[in-house]
């Protein structure tokens, strides 16, 4: 699975280009996340706005990705579509992650503006 990576200010924004994080791609997703967060800013924001379906295997892979960041770095989530939001809410995983409604003003806040591509 190919993830899109963008460093903006003090944050790394990782966008999932695919529409499903399910049992058939959970392991690939987890490996791609490990690669995408191997280095880079402490703050990591995962953009889920293209993902319209996640199952419990996909949810487990997102949790595993956060654990890979260690104690200091944190994984934040943004752009949850309705079913993805429902899975996080029902499993109460919405209490574990910082969840942003959308990407507006998130990573670019330190630069005094909205989301901008720094590259």
């Amino acid at each position, binding site marked *: 699975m190919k993830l899109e990576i963008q460093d903006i200010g003090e944050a790394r924004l990782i966008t999932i280009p695919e529409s499903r994080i*399910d049992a058939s791609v959970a392991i690939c997703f987890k490996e791609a996340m490990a690669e995408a967060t191997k280095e880079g800013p402490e703050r990591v924001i995962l953009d889920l706005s293209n993902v319209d379906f996640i199952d419990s295997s996909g949810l487990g892979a997102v949790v595993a990705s*956060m*654990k890979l960041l260690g104690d200091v770095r944190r994984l934040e989530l943004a752009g949850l579509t309705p079913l993805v939001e429902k899975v996080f809410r029902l499993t109460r995983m919405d209490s574990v992650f910082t969840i942003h409604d959308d990407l507006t003003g998130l990573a670019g806040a330190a630069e005094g503006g909205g989301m901008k591509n720094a590259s």
Partner: protein
Amino acid sequence: MHPEMDSCKLPDKDRGKSENAGLRLDCRMRLKATPEDVRRALGEFCEAVRPLGLSAELTGTVELVLAEVLNNIVEHAYAGANAGQIEFHAYYMDSGFRFEIADGGREMPGGLLPVGDHVDLDTDLNALPEGGFGWYLIHDLTENLQYHRVEGQNRLCFTIPDKREFSICGA
């Protein structure tokens, strides 16, 4: 191998007061127990359901529950052996969906339906669970969930109601 859709009918509305009155979809599928076939079968089933014009919330719930049930069969009943078959029968009536799903894999532990407790999130980051959410979601989103071991087969039946007032809110 692609999942086979044995039959998928949208019965005539004018069947009137027959015993099948209200039946709007009757769908049988057979698939190989692999994650890829589960994904394809879900795609085909969602296509078959589309003409019913249901809410995105209901179809999303149905797809999620089916994904959990079918992936459990792949990962546990057949334990990744990738050889088994899954048979799947779905009906939709005005009150909602009914599903009957059968596989020839190993019996559920203790011959019983797994309980679907909330996983414990009151813990350190490193101890956060990466699994155990599936049966919780299945229990939470279905009704009349029943498991039987019959003639060497696992048979799981459940309904997913299509009525907002019957849906489970924070139960």
